[in-house]
């Protein structure tokens, strides 16, 4: 193939802005302490380079963290006037803005997602989330959800948006007067640990935020700890169900933000170029590691061929590679385990008879990579149409009538999000009413804002994060 004269020269963001320590402890009661479990390594998914040694919290460590949070709640944070809590949160928001580049680079290194996204999406929304909930801390009497905090929140977050999920959990919890023990994902813990330093920098009282690292066992110990008043979890539906079982019979409050298999529905009167951009954004944003990803494209039969042709042309232009390169559209898959899962389901898709297509693209030699992939002729019975792949893999189905689109879109145990593409406003609203999903994007996709509630129907979980509704899960 002739070398493309329009090829992009490398434009890497400098790593010098981050300072990764050789090892990290647990952040408990305002200080970094040793963990008593078996420490593990956090690696860069784009190079497999070992980044740092991370402490593992065992049950005793979890207990210490919960005790610190309890003390901080009863002695300091739970009693502090809202307007003073607000000022701490505003401080944190400002520090996040000021250290935004550092956080963005660290997130890209540890998670594998493109710097373009961490810099322009993840980190700005993190800061905005803290700003938004800072403002609620002294206005709870206007929220309609009461003013009394619950106590200690045990929070477990996933690896796909490490710092953003932290912000979604910690900002509303603290605004409402709760203290937290948060466990980041074991494959992307570094920005949460940097956030712990930011708490120190903001002089946040000790014990208000505790960050404990570890894998499933640590998470289990946290959510089942008897002195935790509230469990907030974002992750797989399987673990969400296990948590719902574990808290059964207790007084613990729970919010769960789980998996999805969103339908992105394109009608024949849709602005097709915009729709194609929306489809690409819907499934290839963040390597498809998005619980609300538009992983099922439902396209009206009359425009299916045209949409598919334009889509393939567009996907061919996506650039895959170094997450720190400012031109990169698709970064690395977060872990070897996740890559294996994506490969397995994609192979099953092929075996079950769907047509598999990926653009010609060279993948780097080291690290975990998967090319953007489109499956055509997918039926509702196929596993790739039913199961969450959590990778850059799109399943394409067709429909003829709006009611058929609704039926297919709702034919899933999930109900997190959906997309509708049409020029007709009344149809957007009719579809939005009929879709059993917590978020419906019309002529756009994957939009997030701190003021806008997010969360699922059915097995995508319960409770909402963001907006005024996001306060409900943290107030009595």
């Amino acid at each position: 193939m002739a070398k493309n004269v329009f090829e992009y020269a490398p434009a890497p963001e400098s790593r010098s802005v981050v300072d990764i320590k050789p090892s990290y402890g647990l952040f408990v009661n305002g200080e970094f302490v040793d963990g008593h479990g078996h420490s593990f390594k956090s690696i860069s998914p784009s190079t497999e380079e070992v980044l740092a040694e991370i402490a593992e919290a065992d049950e005793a460590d979890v207990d210490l963290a919960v005790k610190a949070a309890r003390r901080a709640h009863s002695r300091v944070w739970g009693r502090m006037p809202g307007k003073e809590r607000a000022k701490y949160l505003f401080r944190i928001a400002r520090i996040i803005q000021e250290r935004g580049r550092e956080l963005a680079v660290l997130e890209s290194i540890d998670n594998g997602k493109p710097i373009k996204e961490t810099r322009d999406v993840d980190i700005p929304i993190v800061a905005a989330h803290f700003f938004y909930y800072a403002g609620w801390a002294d206005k709870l009497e206007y929220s309609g959800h009461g003013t009394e905090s619950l106590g200690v929140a045990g929070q477990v977050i996933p690896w796909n948006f490490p710092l953003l999920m932290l912000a979604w959990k910690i900002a509303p919890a603290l605004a409402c007067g709760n203290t937290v023990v948060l466990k980041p994902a074991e494959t992307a813990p570094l920005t949460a640990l940097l956030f712990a330093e930011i708490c120190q920098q903001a002089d946040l009282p000790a014990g208000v935020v505790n960050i404990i690292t570890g894998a499933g066992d640590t998470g289990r110990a946290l959510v089942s700890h008897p002195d935790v008043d509230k469990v907030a979890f974002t992750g797989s539906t399987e673990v969400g169900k296990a948590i719902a079982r574990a808290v059964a019979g207790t007084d613990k409050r729970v919010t769960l933000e789980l998996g999805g298999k969103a339908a992105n529905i394109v009608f024949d009167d849709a602005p097709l170029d915009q729709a194609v951009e929306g489809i690409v954004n819907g499934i290839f944003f963040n390597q498809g590691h998005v619980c609300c990803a538009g992983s099922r494209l439902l396209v009206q039969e009359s425009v299916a061929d045209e949409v598919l042709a334009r889509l393939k042309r567009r996907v061919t232009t996506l650039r895959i590679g170094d997450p720190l390169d400012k031109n990169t559209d698709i970064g690395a898959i977060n872990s070897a385990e996740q890559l294996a899962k994506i490969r397995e389901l994609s192979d099953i898709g092929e075996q079950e008879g769907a047509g598999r297509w990926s653009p010609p693209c060279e993948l780097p030699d080291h690290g975990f990579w998967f090319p953007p992939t489109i499956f055509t002729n997918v039926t509702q019975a196929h596993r790739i149409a039913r199961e969450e792949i959590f990778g850059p893999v799109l399943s394409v189905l067709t429909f003829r009538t709006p009611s058929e689109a609704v039926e297919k879109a709702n034919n899933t145990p999930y109900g997190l999000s959906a997309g509708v593409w049409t020029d007709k406003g009344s149809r957007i609203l009719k579809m939005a009413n009929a879709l059993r999903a917590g978020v419906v994007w019309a002529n756009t996709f994957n939009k997030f804002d701190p003021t806008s509630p997010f969360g699922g129907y059915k097995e995508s979980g319960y409770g909402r994060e963001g907006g005024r509704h996001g306060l409900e899960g943290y107030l009595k």
Partner: protein
Amino acid sequence: MSRIDVRKTYKLFIGGEFPRSESGHSYVVHDQQGRFVANAALASRKDARDAVSAARKAFPGWSARTAYNRSQVVYRIAEVMEDRRPQFVEAVRQGEGGTAASAGKVLDAAIDRLVWYAGWADKITQVTGNANPVAGPYFNLSTPEPTGVVAAVAPADSSLLGLVSVVAPVIVTGNTVVVAASPERPLPAVTFAEVLATSDVPGGVVNVLTGTLDRTVATLASHMDVNAIDLTGLAGDPEQAQALEVAAADNLKRVRRAPAAEPDWAADPGLGRMTDVLETKTVWHPIGV
């Protein structure tokens, strides 16, 4: 021989600039003990009209900013005020008397009030707007929008906390404002204007007039391009307030009436000062395939 200090003449704040009064007039500001403090500009009717033009010009841009951005801009005012503590403490002491400690408390409350209002920018819609479940296949949503240019008569006594409490709710909701400062105690208002000029507030969003009220307030009340007027500063002067309210009726300005006495500015302000300068817009759209 002791050094002779340089005396400052305080100017107006219109459209992001600090002009002298077009009339060329100024007046002497005294402290609580009657000692000379400074000269301040004596705003004329023309200055009031210029201020309204500047506020009108700034309105489209300011009201189109995202609520998040307005929130950040108002929060930034608080940050810059915190940076200028000594100057504010001095200005409050000169005008209102009391100790440095009591003036410091006034400043604390004023900064905290700005922070409180900053947070409202992106929440007032969620508290005062809502979807309406009309009996038919229609999407129906009511949301608040800023009314436009607001004239405000700042309180006579509380020259900083009162001023901030009058201005912040107007601008955080997306309106622009022309504020007539306390005639006897204008210096905190001018210092506040200097803070605005060095923060992120666009020129014309806040315009500050100093001087006697008889020259400016009647012009503002009868001005056909002013959408609302806040008569708080006429507390205890019902005759004058009524006359202004009559003038305001010519273009049905929204009026916040003068209270019988100056309110307790330390109390929770509630939503009223924001909702007074907000319109409600309701949008209907059919639902169907």
